[in-house]
């Protein structure tokens, strides 16, 4: 669940972007994705399995990510997700959209504060 500081609505809007960006350069498995979100947001953002995996599956179904079972020595096999070509385009578009959105917001809110 979300920390008190962040409202669920925000997270919903940003969740896809978070996931896609985390696997942009390197394939990761679900647990790792969840962990990274938590670490990099310094605990501000946390995804539970119950929302993380349905989201992953949805993205996979849309053809943006692709899951693959990978076995590593001494470990059980895990499912790693990487970006598809389509996912890359979506990520770029979303990132752009997010940036202009954040910019617009900060302009509005920052102007008052400044």
């Amino acid at each position: 669940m979300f920390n008190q500081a962040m409202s669920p609505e925000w997270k919903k809007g940003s969740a896809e972007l978070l996931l896609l960006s985390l696997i942009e350069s390197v394939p990761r498995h679900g647990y790792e994705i969840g962990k990274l979100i938590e670490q990099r947001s310094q605990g501000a953002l946390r995804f539970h399995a119950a929302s993380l995996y349905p989201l992953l599956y949805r993205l996979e179904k849309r053809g943006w990510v692709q899951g693959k079972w990978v076995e590593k020595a001494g470990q059980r096999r895990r499912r790693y997700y990487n970006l598809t070509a389509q996912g890359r385009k979506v990520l770029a578009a979303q990132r752009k959209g997010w940036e202009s959105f954040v910019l617009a917001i900060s302009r509005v809110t920052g102007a008052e504060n400044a």
Partner: protein
Amino acid sequence: MPEWKELVRRQLAELRLTPEREAEIAEELAQHAEDRYKELKLSGVSDAEALRLALNEVLDQKAMASGLRDVERTDVPEPVVLGAGAQGHFLSGVGQDLRYGIRTLRKNAGFSAIAILALAIGIGANTAIFSVVNGVLLQPLAYPDSARLVNIYETGADFSHSSVAYPNYLDWRRESHSFSDMGAYRNDDFNLTGSGHPERVSGEYVTASLFPVLGVTLPLGRAFRPEEDRPGTGCTVMLSYNFWQGRFGAERTILGKTLTLNAMNCVVIGVLPASLSATAQAYLPIEQWTGAGLRTRESHPGLRVVGRLRLGMSIQAARGEMEAIAKGLAQQYPATNASNSAAVVPMKDDMVGNVRPVLLLLVGAAGFVLIIACANVANLLLARSAARKREFAIRAALGAERWRVVRQLLTESVLLSLGGAAVGLPLAQWGTTLLVAAAPATLPRSGEVGIDVYVLLFTLAVSLVTGILFGLAPAMHSAKTNPQESLKEGTRGAGGGRHRTEGIFVALETCLAVILLAGSALMIQSVWRLLQVNPGFTVSHILTMQVALSPKAMASPVGIRTALQQLVQRVEMLPGVQAAALTSLLPLGDSDSEIDFWLGNGPQPGPERIKTVVFYVVSPDYPAVMQIPLLRGRVLTERDNLSSTPVALIDDVMARQIFPGVDPIGRQISLIALGTVQIVGVVGHVKQWGLGSDDTNKIRSQVYFPLLQIPDKFMSSGVTALTLALRSKGEPLSFVPSVRAAVAGPADDQPVYAVQAMKDVISGSLAGRRFMMFVLIVFASVALLLAAVGIYGVMSYAVTRRTNELGVRSALGASPWQIVGLVLRQGMGLAGAGLIVGLAASVMLTRFMGSLLYGVGAGDPLTLVAVTVVLGVVAMLACVLPAKRASAVDPVVALRCE
């Protein structure tokens, strides 16, 4: 560490994902939960707390389910998990059940194959027997509106169903009103000459009314006209369909052609339909028969009367009327008809009534085989239901209703039984052919036996009922499963009831197998005892055949006598033939012949002083050929002819019954129509009526009359069906060609037919019992085999289940022998229970075999002991393998499993 995957899977079940997808997601989430759990532990959280947290996170049921449902649902196929979506119509989801059932059975090919094979044997046996029952007992006779057809017999003091005197038939037909019409016929054989080799054809003399009464439609020509059935008119003949096809190449131009039958020129006027189930080849109007027996009320020359009841007329009313008519005739003709009445019997009952009990017995036996097969398959299903415990538990946990689970399981078992039927049908086809081939010639309507639509419907019905029958117990058991219990790893519970049911099934199988074994053992004993019966003559090395004289010889009584004497002489001169003789009647055959007589040489007394005896007309050497022992007096000789005093031999039964304490030699008796004869010898009794039934027949006394003393007026009719019997030095059948040539004579115009070795006549007389014995042995063997498989299956499963216990026992010092004893005791206990119930039941049930048994009773101790031994040995063998395996259990291995 918990079994993550299983826990996750349970949460997913409600989503009804495809199994592959479910497995994939479960694995991924399980991995996640495990990672989380490990991490929590590393951070110092207690084991229990880590477990709780990890589980909570991953298995936050509502959130996970709703999250996944949104994603996954769009492409979820029609749910295959039982118990869901069954609202609405009661039959909804049957297709689903079927698909799932087929898949399940296919996945367990070995199990399915064994079950289907067992069922195929059971269903096949029942179908085969039913096809016989259907053809013989159930189907109406092949005549239109055949339910109205009746046979009418004369009844007398000694006979409940005697053939009819022709004048009586004429009076019946004229005076009765219950029938739309009556017809009559008698079997006879005709000499067909004039077109090449002389031929003996089987035939019938019929009244012109017979075929209209039966309602047959002719494929060619017409039936006899009433005016053609009068004395002195030109001879006409009708042919059977097969005879027309086989002998005359189905030529339609046969109509109007002339055949020479018994030296009469007869014009062919019609061909009978193939459906007419008669063995005759040619039919002549009865008034063409010149036999003296036709005109007298004394004579009952094998005439059979058929009537067609008027529409709406009850058989009781017809009976009442016929009895009244017979009473009137008795008053009018007291000398011949005083003690006679008439009996009216539905034609079909008359035809098949005798075989009904036997066939019903076979139905019962086949039913037992099917029940045994069912019990076996039910046990297989029970054992398998243990393996499927989890499946049912998950379904129940998902909210599947109990009846829905039961329905799925019943669908599977019905699928199995339909598979059994599919495999069983070819088996049945083969079995039916075998049954008809093995059936005694006396089985009526055997030509009508076959697999038709009724048989197919029967098979379908049987397999459906069977499927439900053997599926019900396992299904109820499975449905009762407690999901919480079953989902726990390694539970061994919830099996108590099942093992009890298995035990009951095995005991039931054993019990039924015992009944079949007892039945077949009784049949074997009966047949064996019958074969030990002394028939009163020496069976081996006797050849018998019917002979017919040439038309030329038949022209005068003197010619007949000379021809017969020469015929016997020619045969006796053949090398290897020790003796030859002619007789009017052969023991143990299908035919019979009786004559009325009274003591002394006075005029015919009242009916109360007239007695009936079995009557043989024989040439002098007949007792020598048959080796019937002479007990007193002398045998017949060539000098007992028309110019000497009429004489006769009697058998010792007659000597004891008619002349108790007196020497019968020299006494006189008067034979009706033949006159007074002097008894010159007493010979041994011959079992005329059958090896088993002769002792209980009403008429047992026997009289032998010399052929050469038959008066001229009876000579031509008396020799229509003479049998030649000869004693040979080697295998009797090897003499057939030479004897055939000797009988045919210099002009090659005297045919022989119905050639049989006497030993085959005897075995033919046992054909019915042999048949029953054969079928019962087959059924009992199958039953025994299935029961053994059942015992084996249950015992091996029990040993597997008790591996731990046996390991503990042997660790505590039980010797291998003690372990073996333990298993044997359990197995033999089950078999023993079945045996005891089966023995009791067999004593009660084999009573229904009554008339088939000879010399043994239903509760015959020897049989019961034999059955016990056989079953005990088989049960023991079935237990030995599991017991050996049990004794080989290594305690270390067994306990390590814990």
